[in-house]
């Protein structure tokens, strides 16, 4: 049901019945390594290219999610997923293996919540019984495309972020045990004229703030309704700027309540500069760490706001600015059941 201009309320409460998360060697050293279903010690995943490794990451995340729910892949009605690589080939190639009807999504690093929102909408309106959704990224495959060759010596400024090697997938169903998807707000493309591709957090913060404020307004709830409002990959700078913006707009969101996946995934001392980023960042942290905590009862309601910077190396070279987007999905557990 649509409320306001761009918020869906899912009155049938689609359930996330299982999730799968896969990470790389760098994530294995991180803060939330225990929350991954599978960790790889080899960045290549025994493949002969990073792009193939990327594909395997997503395949494995989907398999894990299906295994845990004891669902066969033939039972999945739709697969909604995407990544950052040109023409989202890793995801499409992984879908070839899975074989389910497939929607390829591109929302840069906001793909995880774009998929979850659409999936929840389809399940909510009885369009499907089982939907698999997810997102993935691979550090070196993404670096190769968006930045420089991995072995090239380019100094990264302190504003830059570290692309996560990881994939997260969630299986949505109209019935079952697990956290429910209760609402979603679709983001607008916001462009504040930022041009520095090494400062994504600063560029994406306004999009996150815009979506969060629209969500609260249209759903007509106070920020304190949520135990946790978590952004995808704003990093340190983007989070600070967002808090400034909330203060300026008079939105009462507290610092403890406002977290960022890009700051959760790695340990202090890992050389990630401003934090983590990538489509796999919000997917792995939300579907792994945060849902685990939710099931443990650490908190009951959270709003996940995945943020994406919709640039390409080409647009950057043509001196275009960086348009950004953010999609918000609320996940609730343990009430009303």
């Amino acid at each position, binding site marked *: 049901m649509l409320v306001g201009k761009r918020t869906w309320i899912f009155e049938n409460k689609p359930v996330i019945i299982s999730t799968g998360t896969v990470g790389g060697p760098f994530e294995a050293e991180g803060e939330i390594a225990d929350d991954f279903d599978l960790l790889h010690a080899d960045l290549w995943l025994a493949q002969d290219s990073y792009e193939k490794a990327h594909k395997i990451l997503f395949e494995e995340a989907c398999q894990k999610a299906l295994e845990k729910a004891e669902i066969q892949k033939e039972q999945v009605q739709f697969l909604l997923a995407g990544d950052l690589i040109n023409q989202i080939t890793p995801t499409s190639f992984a879908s070839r293996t899975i074989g389910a009807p497939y929607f390829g999504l591109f929302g840069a690093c906001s793909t995880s919540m774009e998929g979850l929102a659409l999936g929840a909408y389809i399940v909510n309106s009885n369009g499907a019984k089982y939907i698999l959704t997810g997102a993935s990224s691979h550090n070196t495959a993404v670096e190769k495309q968006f930045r420089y060759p991995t072995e090239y*010596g380019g100094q990264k400024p302190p504003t830059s972020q570290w692309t996560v090697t990881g994939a997260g997938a969630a299986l949505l169903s109209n019935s079952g045990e697990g956290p429910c998807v209760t609402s979603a707000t679709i983001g607008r493309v916001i462009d*504040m*004229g930022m041009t520095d591709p090494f400062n994504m957090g*600063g560029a994406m913060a306004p999009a996150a703030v815009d979506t969060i404020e629209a969500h609260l307004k249209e759903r007509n709830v106070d920020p304190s309704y949520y135990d946790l409002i978590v952004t995808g990959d704003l990093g340190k700078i983007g989070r600070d700027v967002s808090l*400034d913006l909330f203060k300026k707009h008079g939105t009462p969101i507290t610092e403890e309540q406002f977290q960022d996946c890009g700051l959760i995934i790695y340990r202090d001392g890992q050389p990630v500069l401003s934090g983590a980023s990538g489509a796999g960042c919000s997917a792995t942290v939300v579907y792994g760490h945060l849902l685990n905590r939710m099931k443990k009862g650490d908190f009951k309601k959270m709003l996940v706001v995945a943020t994406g910077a919709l640039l390409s190396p080409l647009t950057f070279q043509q001196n275009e600015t960086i348009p950004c987007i953010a999609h918000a999905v609320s996940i609730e557990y343990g009430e009303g059941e």
Partner: protein
Amino acid sequence: MSNNKKKQLTPVQQEYQELQKKRETKRPVVRNCIKAFLVGGFICLIGQLIQTFYIYYFDFTDQTVGNPTVGTLIFIVMLLTGFGVYDRIAQFGGAGSAVPVTGFGNAVISAAIEHRTEGFVLGVGGNLFKLAGSVILFGVFSAFVIVLIKTILIQWGGM
């Protein structure tokens, strides 16, 4: 150019950028410069050592020693790039490792290694000068213009 860009921004965008700037982690320019000085100086020192070595033990003079020195440095860089060390040095040294000829070598070799998966002809061949090509282009073109002017001045200006 940056002024031009500023003019096209809407007031909202300008206001946001001001706000964002306050939170943006500043680049530690002085510290980076000191690191660049040390790393760059060290690479040149190694270059000088190699140069003196070649002059002393082989038949090279100050005039001719440049080629083998550059060749040796680039060989060393190939190893450092291949073993994944040079990008670490670069994160520390910044321009200190990019400006010496070793940075040029690293740009070529890293592109070659990276695009190997696309095959030797289209991948390695097509991308070898992806990063270093602009250096060659502008070096050659500016040299052409400068020498052209100089030659014309000498020939017709009677300099």
